[in-house]
């Protein structure tokens, strides 16, 4: 292995250690403070959890900065540009529209699969479809004001980890590896009920596996928009949209309480797999576009 690859691996190890350590140390301490798992039903809306989520999301960004300082890397190509020229503007738009689209498809699938046999007036609140888009947009605009949290994650994963992995391996392998590392970073949170709760077989290992799967799938689209714009800001917007306007939030805006409880109470593993179907299609399209682009660039240099 040549010296350059050894240096990249050393930087990656330091980055991962700095990103993982705060989550592994802080999660059990905070669980002790709140007197139970952070994402249990009573603690999920606790201000401690919200505060921890905000700070925790900034650890990859801090790991990026600290790794660059420790390894004297400097700030070449920091993926911080903000330009809409040369066709980049459409990727900023897609960074919001694509997550909204696949969340909407997921929501429709959830209703069709988990509430088949129910009539529309049993499922949906009357006239809710008029106000629901405004509620979703309001959710997005409110979360936009704390974009720093999503930027904190993206600056670490897409701004540092992804490019470094691309230098060591092929693009698909880099996306899969990056997604698995991202998913494993969530493991301390999955162990305290994040995303999947506690009521599923093989807790928490199956949850960690599903988290890695979703991170790999999301990584494809996020890497595509990062590479096409040379910036992590579209990826931050996409991540924000994915978290703020997900399928469950869309359904909560239009469904009756009893109908929503039926979906909320469904098997979390099955629910997640249904959610991942449109996301998987997005990932496949993103991967094809990435590989096509790489092929075109290779042809140009020849």
């Amino acid at each position, binding site marked *: 292995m040549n010296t350059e690859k050894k240096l990249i691996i050393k930087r990656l190890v330091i980055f991962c250690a700095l990103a993982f350590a705060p989550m592994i140390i802080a999660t059990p301490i905070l669980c002790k403070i709140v007197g139970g798992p952070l994402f249990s039903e009573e603690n999920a*809306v*606790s*201000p*401690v959890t*919200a*505060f921890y989520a*905000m700070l925790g999301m900034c650890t990859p960004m801090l790991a990026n900065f600290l790794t660059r300082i420790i390894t004297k890397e400097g700030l070449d190509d920091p993926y*911080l540009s*903000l330009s809409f020229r040369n066709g980049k503007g459409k990727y900023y738009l897609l960074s919001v529209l694509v997550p909204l689209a696949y969340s909407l498809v997921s929501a429709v699938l959830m209703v069709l699969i988990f509430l088949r046999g129910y009539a529309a007036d049993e499922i949906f609140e009357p006239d809710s479809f*008029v*106000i629901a888009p*405004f*509620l979703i*947009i*309001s959710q997005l*605009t*409110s979360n*936009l*004001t*704390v*974009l*720093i949290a999503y930027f904190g994650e993206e600056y670490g994963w897409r701004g540092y980890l992804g490019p470094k992995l691309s230098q060591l391996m092929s693009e698909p392998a880099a996306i899969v590896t990056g997604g698995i590392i991202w998913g494993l970073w969530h493991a301390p949170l999955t162990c305290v009920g994040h995303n999947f709760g506690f009521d599923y077989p093989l807790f928490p290992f199956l949850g960690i596996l599903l988290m890695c799967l979703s991170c790999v799938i999301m990584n494809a689209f996020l890497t595509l928009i990062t590479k096409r714009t040379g910036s992590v800001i579209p990826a931050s917007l996409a991540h924000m949209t994915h978290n703020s306007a997900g399928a469950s939030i869309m359904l909560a805006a239009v469904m009756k309480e009893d109908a929503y409880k039926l979906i909320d109470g469904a098997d979390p593993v099955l629910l997640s797999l249904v959610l991942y179907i449109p996301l998987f299609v997005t990932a496949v399209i993103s991967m094809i576009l990435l590989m096509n682009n790489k092929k075109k660039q290779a042809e140009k240099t020849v």
Partner: protein
Amino acid sequence: MFGLIIKQLRLQRIHIILLSFGIVAVAVLSFFFSYFSISSEELDPNSTILPLFLLLYISADAVSTVFFTADESKKWASFIISTPLGARGQVKSRYLLTIFMLFAVNTACFVISSICDIISGEIGSGIFGFSALAFYFLLLFKSIELPFTVYFGSKMGNNVKTGILMGLFFIIGVYLLFGDLSIFGSWDSFMKWLTGIFTGDTKATESMIITMTLSQLAALALYYISYRISCKLYAKGAMNYEY
């Protein structure tokens, strides 16, 4: 453009440090009020913390104005237009710094409100919703003010700002004279009503939700349009600068 941002941050570091001290001071006061609200039922921390957040936003507005006025010189304008960055780079760096300042203050408000909630034991007090609203209001405000500052200079920009504020006070005055004042029973009841919109305790009408959402989207769109207008006006505006 990155260089222009770094330059401005270095030149205005005193203002940024002062704003940071302001954030720390607001944080300490907020934690103080939240702590004492535990033992005193009469003390509603929201009533005191919300005006403190408003002060922070006013300070952020003042600092972001300095980013524009600091380079108000014909010589600098001529120099920067001659560089590859041009007027667009100069204006873009200022607009980005302004919105970063608002993001920073809003994030600080989120952190402070979360810690206040932890101290007081309240879940989702609604303070942060107010902060997000103030963010968009200030963005809208800056969208109108900045093209005037770029073209006519900081004096005209300040006059426009004053004019808008006078207009707002006039509208508020008219509402206080002729509108429904039942929510203004006391300062505390008004704060409870306001924060209740974000916690769901106050029933927000559909028209309120639609108006708030459209205003927020309009603020974002107007900020970008304001940037494009300022890019076109910068070169001509530089001729209006005093020196």
